[in-house]
Every structure is written in structure tokens, then in C-alpha cells.
């Protein structure tokens, strides 16, 4: 297992567009002779790109949770809600399932994604040899979950569009929603920009 043969070790690479298997040449840039798309053994700057995206997402995660995400303006009051306060008020009003759903989808999942990606990045840069299979599974989970993370943003955009009864009740989006959407999009991009093969490189070299 530890001494598996890879394309890289054989000097072979695959065009990610047309799936042609090619011999790698020693040049700064390589191109697929069939579809002319750029080819490389490993995606260049993959770790750096992913890392920068993860860091950006982590930075955005702070305002997304601290700042109010939504303003409910009613006849009686103006109320700013952060994600957490929304969850709490949902829980107080008795809708436990919804509260839990929002809590997981909006707070836990993005956080776990960030942690997971950071862990993978750290492991790759440190060339850790242990449990590449679990990391791989984790990475695939992150990729899978990514597309569901916009639930909150989606729900909110619905609310804002629907609840526009002037002077009686309106819902406004506050800056945190943007930050939150940023977190979601950036973690998805980070997952996409990561070259999963890097996880296994340590195995061949080791």
C-alpha cells in the first residue's frame, strides 16, 4: 500500500479535460496535444490557493456570526438578529427542529468545513503519512456538504423577498449575510482548488 505506483512516479500525467494519458516532459508549462488544455502532474499552487481561500473564509466567519444577519422591522420594534440569536429565538419559540437545522447548517457545518480543510492542509504541508484514507473521506464529505451550505442564504433571500409589508413588517439583509455567503462560497472554492492527489503523495514517496 505504501509503495504504490502513481502516474507521477512513472512520469505520466492525465489531461483533466479529455482524459488522455501523456508522458510528462521537463518543461515549465505543458499542454495536452489532443485538447490543448494545460496539463500538469499536480495542480500548481494548489495548497497556497486552498490555504488562502480557507483563511479568507475563516476571517469572514467571524463577522458572519458576530454581526446581525437580518433586521426585522415591525410596527412595534426594530430587531437585529445574528445567526445565533435567530437560533435561540427559534428554540425559545418551540421550533426545536428548525432551530437545530439552522444551527447545524449555519454554524456547525461551516465551522467543521473550515476545521477539516485546515487539518487537511496542515497534514499535506507537513507531509503526514498517517490515515490518508480518512482524510480523503473527510475531504469528499466536505465537497459533498458544500452544495447544501447555502440553505440559510436561500431561506433569508426568500424572507426578504416575501416579507415586505411596508411599515408593518419588513425584513432587511444585514452585512453578516454577505459574509456568511462568502464563507460558504469560499469554502466550496477552497475544496475545489485542492488537489486531492496531494493527500497520497506522501505514501509513494515514503
Amino acid at each position: 500500500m505504501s509503495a504504490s505506483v502513481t502516474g507521477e512516479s512513472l512520469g505520466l500525467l492525465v489531461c483533466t479535460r479529455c482524459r488522455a494519458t501523456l508522458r510528462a516532459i521537463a518543461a515549465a508549462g505543458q499542454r495536452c496535444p489532443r485538447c490543448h488544455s494545460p496539463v500538469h502532474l499536480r495542480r500548481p499552487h494548489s495548497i497556497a490557493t486552498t490555504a488562502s481561500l480557507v483563511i479568507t473564509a475563516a476571517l469572514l466567519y467571524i463577522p458572519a456570526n458576530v454581526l446581525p444577519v437580518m433586521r426585522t422591522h415591525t410596527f412595534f420594534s426594530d430587531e437585529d438578529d445574528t445567526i445565533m440569536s435567530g437560533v435561540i429565538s427559534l428554540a425559545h419559540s418551540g421550533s426545536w427542529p428548525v432551530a437545530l437545522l439552522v444551527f447545524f447548517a449555519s454554524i456547525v457545518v461551516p465551522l467543521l468545513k473550515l476545521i477539516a480543510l485546515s487539518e487537511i492542509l496542515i497534514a499535506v504541508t507537513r507531509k503526514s503519512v498517517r490515515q490518508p484514507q480518512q482524510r480523503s473521506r473527510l475531504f469528499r464529505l466536505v465537497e459533498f456538504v458544500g452544495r447544501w451550505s447555502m440553505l440559510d442564504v436561500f431561506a433569508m433571500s426568500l424572507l426578504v423577498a416575501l416579507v415586505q409589508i411596508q411599515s408593518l413588517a419588513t425584513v432587511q439583509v444585514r452585512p453578516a449575510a454577505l459574509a456568511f455567503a462568502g464563507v460558504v462560497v469560499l469554502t466550496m472554492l477552497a475544496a475545489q482548488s485542492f488537489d486531492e492527489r496531494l493527500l497520497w503523495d506522501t505514501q509513494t514517496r515514503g
Partner: protein
Amino acid sequence: VADRATPPADELPPAVPDLPRRVRVPYVWILPIIVVITGAFLAVREKLAEGTSIEISFHTADDLEPNKTKISYKAVEIGEVKEIHVSKDRKEVIVEARIHRNVRDYLVQDTRFWVVRPRVTGANISGLGTLVSGAYIGVDVGHSTVPEDHFTGLEVPPIVTSGLPGREYILHASDIGSLSIGSTVFYRHIPAGQVVAYSLDPGGASVTVKVFINSPYDKFVTQETRFWQASGVDMSINSEGVKLHTESLASILEGGVAFQAPKESASGDSTSRDSTSTAEMAEDTSFKLYSDQERATREADTVAETFILYFQGSLRGLSVGAPVDLRGINIGEVKRLSVEYDRVAGVLRFPVEVDIFPQRIRSRARASGAKGTELDMGGHTMIDSMVAHGMRAALKDGNLLTGQKYVAVDVVKGAPAENVAWDEHPPIFPTASGGLDELTDSIGSIAKKLDKVPFDQISNHLITTMATLDQTLKSTDRLMRNVDASIAPQVTATLKEAQDAMKNAKEALSEGGSLNNDLGDTLLQLSRAAKSLGALADYLERHPEALIRGKPTDPR
């Protein structure tokens, strides 16, 4: 699958070399930098826009909520309550609030804060909007330039906010009556202002009331303006009868103050009115607050001369404040009633202290430019001369129904000569009895006059008169007897003759009598004569020539 053996690696096509790309730091690193810069920028801006933190102390945090209650100036939000906690001495509540940066200059020493919540008082309802929107903190920006960040909140909204045109005046009164903060100030029954504040004077003997007069009306506050309590219903029973006075329904509910200048200034003619009396008064000028309109308009008199009156009769019905009346003109009022024991004489005396307002007695001397009060300056001589002419003070019944009395000053004819005791302090003014006393007095004088009637002489005269009358009657009797004796028989004879004459006449005139027949014949002939005269006249009319020619002979 087996046929399609994997080609050896060398047979695979090689990758085509591409133009070497510039090796560079991946552009995505811009992202976290952008985020950090944006975040920092926003944080700094937020921090800057956060504004100033202030503390306001209130008695209670009723209706206030952290992060929810707004601070509004003229209904524009300028801040928000951030935190509420109880002060260390547990006496009040400290409200921490953030005021927007751009209105920092509002936070000066005399800026006032209060909680706007629904309030219902006697005559007005305010802050109804806060019933649904929740309370907020109102602000009135002060004029000071000294910045301040610790404020003491007002418990009630200020009546007058800065910038409202008008003036504040200070009134001094003996008691507050039914006034309260917000009570209306009336000028000719127009609501012209409000009571802003009141306080007990340090001594506790009087109160100071602050009123604010709105702009168009404050110019009517002049030196001569009088303020009086228009609180509730003013009902008075005095020697002038029953009087009921009220300013407006609202003032009945929550009291009020009215002001007006006396109709005619006490100083007299309009010509003598100098400009200071009509000039508007500066802010915070002090005025006296009278207890009612009558007193306010009456007490134009700054000079009061006090006299003591000793009355003989009972003082029942005379009260403090009763008028001193000079032929219907009120020239003063009763100040005090008391009892004193005169040791020398060993009797009780009832001194009535009265204030006379000499300014009400205008003298001709005034017009010629003489200054001073008439009663005072050379006034002694005036009063002395008046007293010498019989001027006396007397108790009179003002109102028989209520039994109220007043002091009347008038000339009493035939009063025993008296003088004003100027040496006494206050001087004693001579009195005369009046009212019922007067009645008894006059009855007495009638009796006195009756006493003087010389009934003895009268009866003597009567007796002699009677005697004379008797003699006269006797001589008359004698005369009658003479008449009887001498004249009566002649009269009888004369009557008899007359009777005969009448009888003859009657016979002559009776039917068939000679006179009657003659008369009938005479009348017949007269009638015939008349008829022929008629025929003559008829003929002459037809034949006037007959007068000359004579009657022609009948041709036949």
C-alpha cells in the same frame, strides 16, 4: 480487455511544451488581504461612528431596554441605550447610551434627557405613540458650550424646550394653590403659556413658580402686569354678594395662572404713563402671584395708610378684607380685627385695623405736579379738615342676606367734634355708629325732640281755647234765639203771600184759563199774517216790477 494490452509508457504521446508561465504568488492571496483590509476599515469606521458614550441617571428604568430604546432629538434618532444598571448607592438607575458621533456637540451641560412614555394629566395626553412603539429618551439640547457626558434625567418631560420662542418669568406666591407643572397661563382667557416649575422657598414660607409665556404673548408682560391664580372655581361671599369666577374648564381641572395689566394704571392718566410701564419685561423678572383676580387688579396700591377704628357696636359680620367704602368707592380694606383691654379705662376695646390706599383718592393737586401721597404729605391737614367737617368711619350692613358688614367713611352731620389721634401708632380715626346703631340713635333723637315738645303749655292753651269756644257758642245761641223771636213771624207772612201769588199764576195758566185762550188766538192770527206775507213774497219774486207799477189788473 485482455487484447487491449496497456501500451508501454514510452509509446504514450508526450505533453506539448507550453509557454512558460510567469511564476508568481497565486492571485488568490489577494482575497484574505482584501477581507482583512475591508474588515479593518469597517471596524475602524464602526468604532468612529459609534459615537460618544454618555450616562444618564433616572429614578427608574421603567420602559427602557438596552440596545432597543432610542434617544431622539425632535423625533430624529441620535443614539441608543446600550446598558442599564443600578447606581452604586442603589438610589437611581444609570443608563449608558451611545450618541452618534455627528451630534456630539449636543452633549453640553444644560442638555436635558427624559423618558417619553404615555402620560395622561388633567388636561392633556402626551406620548400616545410610545404605547406601541415603546418608550424613548427625548433630548432637549442646551445652550451651554461646556461639554458633558454625565446627565441627570428629568422625571417628567420639560414643558418648554429650548428654541421655543417666549420668555420665562418668576412668580412669588404664598401657596401653590392647585397649580402644577404644565398648568396653563392665560392671557385674556387665551392659553398663553405654562407653568414650568415650582419650588418651595428655602424658608418654607412661600413658593416660587416659574412660568413660560409663549412668544406672541410675552410682550404683554409689562411692569404693571399682574399675575393671579386662576385655579379652579373662585367663589367668594362678601359684603358685595356672591361671586363665582373661573378661567376655563381646563383650569378647573388642573389649575392655571392668568395675567393682565390693570385696566387703568394706578398712576392715573395715560399721559403720565412712562415708557417703562409698557416696556416688555426681561426674562426671569419676578412678579407677585396674587390669589385671585380681584386682589391682583385691586392692589395697585403700593402705599397703604393704616388706621385704627374703635367701633361701639358688635363687629360680627366684619371680616378681614372687607372694603372701606367712601360713598361707594372702595378706598381700602380691613386688615385686622382684634380685642384689647384698656387698663386705664378698664374696658374691652375692639380695634379694627384698616388700610387706606391714598392713591385711590386722587387729588387735584396731583395734576399740578405735586408728588407724594396725599394723605401723607400735607395729608394730615386734609384728613383733619375732612374729619372736622364730620368725616367719620361707620360700620354698615353690606348684605343683609349674608350679614356681611363693611366700613363706610362718610360725612356724618351733627357729629360731635373729634380729631384724628395722629400720635397713636397707627393713628386712630374717629368713628360714628351706623346701621342698627344708627337706627337706635335716630329713634333716640326723635324721642329727644318729642321730649322738647311743651305739652303743658299746649294743654293750657287748649283749655283757654275751649273756654273761648264755649263763650262763642253761647253768644251764637243767643243770636239764634233773637232770630227766632223777631224774624220768624215776618218770614211766615212773606211765605204766605208768595204762596198766593203762585196760586194765581197757576190758575191763569191752567187749561181753559183766560190767559191760555188769548194766547191761542194771538198765535192763530200770527200764523195767518205769516201766510199772507209768504204769498206776498212769492208774488214779488215772480213780478218784481209790481213793487213799482203795482199789481196789474186781471185781464180776465
